């Protein structure tokens, strides 16, 4: 279980307890947190669960991107070097306290 903070582009904050094994994307969807769309349902084929990890230490601590994630991020709305696809961030106790920022829009 990890407490994840989701911050919308307009600054609205949401916090959710997300069970281990779910993705950060699923944590948002299951808790009706707006700002993450996840059109493809977690298949790494749509780039609509895009988030920014603004904290540099947290960004380094996350599991590395697998092949294809950066390719998909090329197709996201305003990707940056601290961008991740939240469907690829699998929750474990290690992610407790993670904060993700949502982009202005997903599509």
């Amino acid at each position, binding site marked *: 279980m990890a407490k994840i903070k989701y911050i919308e582009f307009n600054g609205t904050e949401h916090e959710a307890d997300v069970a281990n094994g779910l993705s950060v994307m699923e944590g948002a969807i299951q808790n009706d947190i707006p700002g993450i769309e996840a*059109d*493809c349902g977690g298949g790494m084929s749509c*780039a609509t669960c895009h988030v920014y990890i603004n904290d540099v230490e947290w960004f380094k601590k996350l599991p590395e991107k697998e092949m294809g994630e950066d390719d998909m991020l*090329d197709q996201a709305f305003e990707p940056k*070097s601290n961008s991740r696809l939240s469907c690829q961030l699998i929750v474990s106790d290690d992610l407790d306290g993670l904060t993700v920022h949502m982009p*202005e829009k997903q*599509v």
Partner: protein
Amino acid sequence: MIKTDVVIIGAGPTGLFCAHQLGIIGLKCEIVDNLDKIGGQCIELYPDKPIYDIPAVPKCTGEELTNNLIEQIKPFNFNFHLSDRVQELKNENNKWLVKTLNGKEFETPNIVIAGGVGSFEPRKFPTKSAEKYDGKSVLYSIKDKTIFKDKSVVIFGGGDSALDWAIELSNSSKVTLVHRRDEFRGAPSSVQKIKELSDNKTIDLITKYSIKDVKGNGSLESVEIKSESGESKVIKADYVLGFFGLIMQLGPIAEWGLNLDKKTIPVNTENFETNKKGIFAIGDICTYPGKLKLILSGFHEGALAARGCFKYARPDEKYRFEFTTASSTIKDRLGVKE
């Protein structure tokens, strides 16, 4: 005006198998899809990725699945209307009048929406100023490449479309290729070619930059790009091309008076009809308690929706359930000779 029993919106696996079920029970259908090819997400998003959860098919790619479904409905000779989109629905005397973007018209008692997550459209530049030039000098696809001859063209993107067009247009235009990072997702041979063209100064290659603004006075004059650390550059541009892949938009479906739950359409699980009589929704676009976004669920939904269509297409006939193994009527429809 084309009269038919069913108009299917979406030529993905769910729409294709629903067409098969309609053919089996003796109904006609017309299939409309926004993409220029058959197969929906399977062909657009993951043609080469193996799928492992199609019943009785241990492993197949999106492309193989699509080809098999096309083969399976071949006996029925249904018409496909590709690169077109259903725009308007109107109900008249219990019939739906359907109009497409390209001006086609259908009259039908049934519409099956098998639209996935909506229609695929190119992702556009986030900059507001680019909208003014959209379709004129800011483009997301190329229909006529001769317009770029001897012009300054700035291309954004790192995939095959961006690389292929940068290579192609470098023969007759001044090309600048801008990408947000150093790695490219295009084919290795294209990446190699781009590096050669950049080394011998045929094209300008700028990485770790993205678009900031487009500028012009009536016609487009330049594009400003920015790095993440805040540096910016201005490049002369007659045309700006963006290739960021496709996104899915619900589009006109949202305007047909259907109940919507976020981007999905609630249906009953008896025949997958929506709140509108004669409009059914199947596959990823429909929702009901327990809905799974699996291709196999779409097949099931399509089979039941087809029976729902029968009621409105043949109001004076009673639908009779038959097995393909035993029914000579079905075998005739399939053109099976024994």
